[in-house]
């Protein structure tokens, strides 16, 4: 029984490349899921019962089916209907759709928390529904939901490790390759575990800072 971390030194560059791919996938998927989540949140808070039901069904399905099943559905299913895209794009799309279900819940809560008086004031000022939404409702809702959106991002970083199962060499995928070259699984995976934990910890610190900065004028209300 020996633990020798120095054998990892020659492979650090390779692992860093994997980490970069993870970061790229997560940033793209975060943007995708916030956009997706915003639209779904609009549908869920709309006055149309049908839109509400459709949006609820989407959220319900993608929150209650394991991500790996969704991923395989897209990865093996899309070529079947003639869409040939690489594993990275498939992964980002799957992450965005799954993340969108969680993000929509967060944004919906942000919308529902908006003071009714603000919306009435906008109506009285004669703003159109679209302007009201993009200029008043969404900025307030997004600003107050920075912190919960951050936990969606952290979850996404952890979930992105599953992308290694569709041949994508992100952080976990490249760690598997390093293991097959060094035959030192324990060292590699312990380091990987700590790296993921440190990464998500740093992200959560950054989000707390951003949240405080964005909400600085109403600190006493949210603190």
């Amino acid at each position: 029984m020996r633990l020798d971390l120095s054998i990892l030194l020659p492979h650090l560059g390779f692992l860093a490349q994997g980490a970069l791919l993870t970061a790229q996938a997560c940033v793209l998927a975060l943007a995708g899921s916030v956009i997706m989540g915003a639209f779904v949140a609009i549908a869920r808070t709309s006055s149309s019962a049908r839109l509400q039901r459709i949006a609820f069904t989407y959220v319900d399905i993608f929150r209650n089916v394991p991500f790996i099943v969704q991923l395989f559905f897209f990865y093996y299913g899309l070529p079947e209907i003639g869409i040939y895209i690489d594993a990275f794009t498939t992964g980002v799309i799957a992450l965005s759709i799954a993340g969108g279900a969680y993000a929509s819940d967060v944004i919906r809560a942000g919308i529902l928390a908006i003071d009714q008086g603000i919306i009435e004031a906008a109506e009285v000022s004669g703003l159109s529904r679209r302007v009201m939404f993009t200029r008043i409702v969404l900025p307030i809702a997004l600003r107050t939901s920075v912190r919960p959106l951050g936990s969606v991002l952290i979850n996404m970083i952890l979930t992105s490790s599953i992308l290694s199962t569709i041949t994508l060499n992100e952080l976990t995928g490249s760690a598997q390759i390093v293991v097959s070259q060094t035959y030192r699984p324990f060292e590699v995976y312990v380091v990987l575990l700590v790296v993921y934990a440190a990464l998500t910890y740093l992200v959560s610190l950054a989000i707390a800072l951003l949240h405080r900065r964005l909400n600085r004028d109403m600190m006493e209300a949210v603190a």
Partner: protein
Amino acid sequence: MRFTDFTAFDLVLLAQGLSVNVALFLGTSLVGLVIGISWAILRFYRVPVLSEAITFVSELLKNSPVLVQLFLVFFGLPGLLHIRVTPVTAAAITLSANTAAFVYVIAVSAIESIGRDQLEAARVFGLSRWQVLRHVVAPQAAAFAVGPLIALLVNQLQVTSLISVIGVVDLTKIGNILNMRTLKPFIVWTAVGLLYYAAAKLVAWFGSRFEKRLRAHSAWRGL
């Protein structure tokens, strides 16, 4: 010769796969609950060093991907300790520890939700620390924690799908096998997804019934 059609036996295979998931889910949830709650009790008694160590381990388990934890136990432990670890054992160890980490956090916040004045009052009446825990803290903490715990269990059920990656023949693995044989990804993964969905809904339903019973004492009974 290739059988590319679906047969009635495929349904049996799917049911077998699901039963593997459900069995592992029930077993590891139970073990995780017991471990997580005992960790929280250790913290309640303010055991020095041990409390800090537990908090650190649970943070590490919460903030790293389950897939990496599975790899660490399945590939890493045999390499380090020269023991045999079967896929099912590795899955059971990892999922139990992971569930325990989340249960610990929920249990700690549930215990902390009870006002200090109650504990002090109980101590003044001459109750021992254990009696305070058993008769004052536990009933209220259980009612507080049951909601988050059910959400956690629904999530852990989905996490069991990851054990297919280390070779446990669970529902996802069966889906993979059927997908490779029939080359009909949409049908296969929809069926697999539906089964997971139904299982998650069942857990949520049992959970909400249990929650109603736990909270019956504080429910509005009408005039």
